Structures are given as structure tokens and as C-alpha cells.
């Protein structure tokens, strides 16, 4: 279902939890609400579900205003962080609950529940109680229960937070596949950027009650619109005086402009490894951490500590060694705006080199 949210506001006492939030979600999309804890993500989700009243603003499903509609009449499915399974009901009864409430004939209830049990891989567990299931299985039950009444919108609050790291990976892929197969508009809340990037079609970054940015994971990664988004997504080092770095001298020191540099914007190595040696500058290796698939290198350049990666295929560096460092680009921001700047010297015409 198509969802429109306009100027949503919510206060809890003196705390302004959600500030003027507006967004649109297209039918069939899977959206991740990503942000730090206490940022208002869950409040937004609960307002969409009707579990929380809103102070001002509009929520429209299919163009119809649903502000005053109770959760029972919104046609949504909600998966709670701790699943909130009915602990005194079996798996079957849990999934059947929403159908029985609607007074659907029991033969039909049974076939629908069995269909969902099949779909969620819970076959053989129908007679068990929630406390007899593993975390992953409970999650699947919660999911099946929410889907049973065929909702138009599926809302998931930190769906993987309570699951072991190992199974979490598997469940993520499973969930993404399943949602695609069912074709239901879904919104999930998470504070884990890997999860959001991996599962969501589109991400909304929420911080301090505001939507910082909305877009595909790739867009957000590539072009963060605010400093918060830039620091929150991916790794980065914050540099106060970016003019110290070669290729960025034109940024004035006292302009209040600061820079975020991602590890993958930086290349480090011996002089002969660079094609454009003139753009590099000297650095000293301070630390080396083996990361399993690559080296994490801490290198000091002009008094700044930068973090980057280095492939295991390349010649191994050692601590204290002098190396060349090339900063490809930096994400710059000041109080008015933010922009991405490529290294000046990289743009120098090839003729210079000849």
C-alpha cells in the first residue's frame, strides 16, 4: 500500500521525540528506518501502526487519512522486537489468532495457518508453545502471525535484535526473500547499518526525531546529505583542518569547514604502487590490525591519523614504516552546507606527468 506521512510530530512529556517527519513509501517497497537508539524510529513505526497517538501531522494509507483509525482497523501486521508471542498459546493458535478474531471459518483458518507454517519453515512445530522454541523460530512465528490476516503493510520493530549473530545473517536473507515473495509493503526499524543496507530497498536515516536522509543504500553511502549520515553510515575519520592534506589546500583553515574521510577514499602503499605519485604525500604507519580479509591501517599524515584498508595481496607493511598516502576525496561540511570534493591533484591533466 502507498503510504504518505506529512509533518508528523510526537511529544513524550517535554521530550520532542518526532519532529516534523514527512515521507512517502511506494507500494511493495521494503524500507529500513535506521538510526541510533532513542532517535524516534520506533515511535514513527508505532504511530503508523496506531499504537501511539500523534500530536500533529497526517498519515495516509492509499490516500485515506488514518490518523483516527485504531490499530485494529488499519490492516497492518506488526512484528515486535521481543516478538510478543502469546505465551499461553501454541504456534498454531498464535498464527490463527488474527484469523479467528475476524470470525473466519475454522477450515479456512486451518488451511491459511498451514500455508504460513509451510512458508516460514515451521512445519512440525505447530503444537509447541513459544517457550519451547529457539529465538529464530519465535521470530518466524511472529512473522507468520503478522502475515496471517493478509495485512497491507508489515511493520517490524528491530526484528533481529534478539537473535544470535550467527542465525541473524541467515534470517535476514530469509526475511528479504519472503517479503519479496509475498510482495507486501514493509517497514523495519534497526540500529544496525549492515542490516539496513543488506535488507532494505530504501533506507531512511532517523536522528533526533528527524529524517536525515532517504534513499537507496548505495545513494546514501555515496552521497550523504548531512554530516550525521556521513558518520553514521560506513566508517570514517573526522579531520578538522583538511587543508593540511595534499590536494585539499584550498579549503581555508578558519572557514569552519571540516572533513570526513572514509577508509576506502584513502590509498596507502609504496611509491611504486601509485600511478599518480605526484598526488601522494608522506605518512608513517602507526598501527596495523589484521581484519581477517584485509589489513586495517592507521597512518599518520601531517599530524592527522587516518584509517584505511590494505589488501592482503599487496606487500605487507610494518609499523613505523614511511609510506605514500593518496586521499582520493573527502566529504566536506560546514554550518551551511556539505559537499564532496575530489583531490585536486588527481584532476591534473595527464600532460603534467609527461
Amino acid at each position: 500500500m502507498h503510504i504518505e506521512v506529512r509533518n508528523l510530530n510526537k511529544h513524550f512529556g517535554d521530550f520532542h521525540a518526532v519532529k516534523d517527519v514527512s515521507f512517502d513509501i511506494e507500494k511493495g517497497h521494503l524500507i529500513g528506518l535506521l538510526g541510533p537508539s532513542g532517535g524516534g524510529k520506533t515511535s514513527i513505526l508505532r504511530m503508523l501502526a496506531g499504537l501511539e497517538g500523534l500530536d500533529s501531522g497526517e498519515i495516509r494509507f492509499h490516500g485515506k487519512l488514518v490518523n483516527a483509525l485504531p490499530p485494529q482497523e488499519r490492516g497492518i501486521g506488526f512484528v515486535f522486537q521481543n516478538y510478543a508471542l502469546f505465551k499461553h498459546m501454541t504456534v498454531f493458535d498464535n498464527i490463527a489468532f488474527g484469523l479467528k478474531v475476524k470470525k473466519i471459518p475454522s477450515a479456512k483458518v486451518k488451511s491459511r495457518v498451514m500455508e504460513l507454517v509451510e512458508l516460514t519453515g515451521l512445519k512440525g512445530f505447530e503444537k509447541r508453545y513459544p517457550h519451547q522454541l529457539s529465538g529464530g523460530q519465535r521470530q518466524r512465528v511472529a512473522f507468520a502471525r503478522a502475515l496471517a490476516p493478509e495485512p497491507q503493510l508489515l511493520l517490524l520493530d528491530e526484528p533481529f535484535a534478539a537473535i544470535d549473530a550467527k542465525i541473524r545473517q541467515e534470517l535476514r536473507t530469509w526475511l528479504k526473500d519472503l517479503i519479496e515473495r509475498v510482495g507486501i509493503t514493509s517497514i523495519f526499524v534497526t540500529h544496525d547499518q549492515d542490516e539496513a543496507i543488506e535488507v532494505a530497498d530504501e533506507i531512511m536515516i532517523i536522528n533526533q526525531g528527524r529524517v536525515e536522509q532517504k534513499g537507496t543504500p548505495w545513494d546514501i553511502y555515496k552521497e550523504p546529505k548531512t554530516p550525521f549520515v556521513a558518520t553514521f553510515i560506513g566508517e570514517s575519520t573526522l579531520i578538522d583542518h583538511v587543508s593540511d592534506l595534499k590536494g585539499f589546500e584550498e579549503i581555508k583553515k578558519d572557514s569552519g569547514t571540516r572533513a570526513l574521510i572514509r577508509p576506502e577514499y584513502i590509498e596507502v602503499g609504496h611509491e611504486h604502487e601509485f600511478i599518480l605519485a605526484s598526488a601522494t604525500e608522506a605518512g608513517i604507519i602507526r598501527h596495523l590490525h589484521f581484519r581477517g580479509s584485509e589489513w586495517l591501517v592507521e597512518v599518520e599524515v601531517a599530524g592527522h591519523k587516518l584509517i584505511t584498508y590494505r589488501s592482503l595481496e599487496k606487500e605487507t607493511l610494518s609499523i613505523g614504516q614511511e609510506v605514500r598516502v593518496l586521499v582520493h576525496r573527502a566529504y566536506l561540511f560546514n554550518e551551511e552546507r556539505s559537499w564532496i570534493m575530489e583531490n585536486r591533484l588527481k584532476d591534473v591533466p595527464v600532460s603534467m606527468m609527461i
Partner: protein
Amino acid sequence: MKKYWITLTYIVFIVLIIIPLLKIGSGAFSEGFSGWKDSLIRPEAIHALLVTGLVVVVVTCINTLFGVMMAIYLVRSHWLSRKIKSFLNSLVDLPYAVSPVIGGLMIVLLLGPESIMGGFFENIGFRVVYAFPGMVIATLFVTFPLMVREVMPVLQEIGAQQEEAASTLGAYGWTTFWKVTWPSIQWAVLYGVVLTVARSLGEFGAVLVVSGNIMNKTQTATTLVYQDVENFNVIAANSVALVLAAISIGLLLMMEWTKRRKGVS
């Protein structure tokens, strides 16, 4: 050292609880079984036990209903602000702090024949104080916190999420309560019922003040025991007390049982 402490514990229990209990038993049967039976089939004894039974049933029904609802409102309601809820919550405990005699006095002052409200009821031919309704009100006052205090922590512990889940699945308040909330609180409610029964069965001070202790009319089992003691009719007092003690022990066993069930579910 350990043995010494255990022995001491046993001594305290035996002196403070077990011997007195046995004393009641031996006192009741000091003139044989027939003495016990004769004391119990006195018309005033039968009447007093019936009145007590009636008070227990009425009070338990009313306070179970209102206690559970009050607990739900205090824990879950959105329509009361948090400050009002915590204020009401602290008021719930007041009857604990009030001496039963004062509890009875309050009702006499408020609803007695000389008061405004009491006078009004008197005029329409409805006697409150020195009659059955007053005794019920006094007992309601004394037992009100029991149910609320049993149900509230359970509601807080299970949280609102299961109920919210039910509402997103299309269930309204009534269905949600019976299908989702009730199974979680049922043992706490039963425990509260047992406590309320025990307390209203044993209530003495408040009822004594409110009832006026009129034989064959407003006398309850406990006030009868009091009167028998005052009249030095020890065997009669013991006989009724033994019945009350036996019921209490039965209730105690039920408390233990429900407590265990409460822990399991």
C-alpha cells in the same frame, strides 16, 4: 552453629504458631465432640457463620471485579496522566495503614444515622450502618488493596506488547482481555481472591464497629468469638475459632498452591 539456628527457628514456630493452634483444638474439644458440636449448632453461631459467609462472597465478588479493573487502569491506561496514576497508586495502599477500627469509624461517621448521607438512606428505608450493607462496605475498604497489589506487578511484568500485538491483529479490548491478558493474570487473580477471602473472613475491628454486633442480626463469626470470650464462654469461642482456623489453614494451602502456579506460568 547451623543446628542451633534451626532449633531456634523451630522453637519460635512451635511456641508462636503451633502450640496456640493446638490449644484452640484442645479447647474446642475439652468437653468432647458433642461440646464442640453443641457450641456450633447454637442458632447465633450458625447465623454468625452464615453472615460471615455472605460478607465474604459479596466482598470477594465486588473487589475482584473492581480490583482487577483498577489494576489494569493503573498500569495500562493512556487516558490518565502519569502523575495522576502514581497518585492514585499511592492511595491504593491507604487501607493498609488504617486501623480496622478507624476504618469502621469512618463508615459510621460517613453513613451513620446522624450523618447527612446516612440520614438520607434512612429516610428511604435503607439502613447502612448497624446493618449488612455497612459491614460489606467496611470489609470492602479493608480488602481493597489486596487484589490490586497482586495483579499490578504481573501486568507490569508481562508488558503491554502482547496486548498491542493482539490489537494489530484486529482484536478489540474485550477479546484481547479474555484471550491474551486473562491467561497471564489468572493465577494472580486467584491468589488475590484467596487473600481477599481470608481477609474478609477474618475481619474483625471494622466489622465490630460498623455492625454493632447484634446477635442473630449483624454478628459475624469473629465478633461472635469476641463476644463469647467476653462472656467467659471459652468452649464456645474455641469451637467457632477452630472452624475459622481450619478454613484459614485451608486458604493458606490454597495460597501456597496458587503461588506455585503463579510462578510456573
